[in-house]
């Protein structure tokens, strides 16, 4: 058991590290001592306590962790609710590319207000709420999405 955990740690450490330097052009270090310690630095910057990172940097570091997990051990689905809210457009694009890589093994359901994110999906559902506090679901196509968000 202990061996399995150490093995999982090494795989995760490598995968996260590789993703971080490829996507964030930075560096990520993980340590396993009484728990899972993480330290990251972004391009051109030094290592800093996680609390000093920006909102978008924290979101990206966290999302890359999920992507690393799913690359090692995909689960049948992954639900992401408005995870792109703090990201700038280039980082949204990076997230989308990573999600697209996951899609052969994992069904990704992503809730978003960002048309840039939504249009890369294979299927789009619109949820609306006419006056009566009742949700209605209808499928949409990418062109309709752009018309409705004007």
């Amino acid at each position, binding site marked *: *058991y202990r061996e*399995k*955990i150490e*093995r999982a740690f090494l*795989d*995760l450490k490598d995968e996260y590290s590789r993703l971080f330097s490829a996507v964030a052009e930075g560096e990520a270090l993980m340590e*396993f001592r*009484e*728990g*899972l*310690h*993480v330290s990251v630095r972004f391009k051109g910057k030094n290592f800093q306590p996680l609390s000093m990172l920006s909102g978008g940097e*924290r*979101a990206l570091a*966290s*999302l890359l*962790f*999920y992507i690393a*997990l799913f690359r*090692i*051990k*995909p*689960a*049948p*689905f*992954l*639900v992401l*609710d*408005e*995870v792109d809210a*703090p990201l700038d457009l280039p980082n949204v694009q990076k997230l989308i590319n990573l*999600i*697209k890589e996951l*899609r052969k093994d994992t*069904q*990704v*359901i*992503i*809730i*978003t207000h960002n*048309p840039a994110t*939504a249009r*890369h*999906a*294979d*299927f*789009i*559902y*619109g*949820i*609306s*709420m006419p*006056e*009566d*506090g*009742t*949700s209605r*679901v209808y499928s*949409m196509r990418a062109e309709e*999405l752009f018309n409705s968000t004007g």
Partner: protein
Amino acid sequence: MYLHSILLSGFKTFPVRTQIKFHPGITSIVGPNGSGKSNIVDAILWAMGEGRSSLLRASRMEDVIFKGSSSRSALSRAEVLLNFVQGEESLTIGRRIYREGDSEFLINGSSARLRDVQDKLREIGIESREYVVVEQGQVETFLNMSPQERLVFLEALA
């Protein structure tokens, strides 16, 4: 197995029996603020056995039952079914709750216990709810966890 469809009935803003079909690949869900998108996520978590009502933005578990709107009266029960499919195989995990507080789980229509549901989910590759759902506003969770708490992810991998 992939998530083929979910059925919501009386759950939060879904008083009307609503089925949502999913496909392999990427599905995007869009819509105005308050329209019910995160309620769908709550339904998935709830059906998978979430026991902490606060994680479903509810004070008590019965709060997930449709409480009425300006033009509909409150309902007395809520039900969510998750249907997973792989080729010919089909697995349906369900959960019901009644306003008096009774709640039950169902696997392929038969009554089951929470632990049976968790075992079934593990069988199809869902180690834990944290592994498969990132709730709204929770994207930084991994960073905010203590090093000890993060071990659950290593356990899911092992």
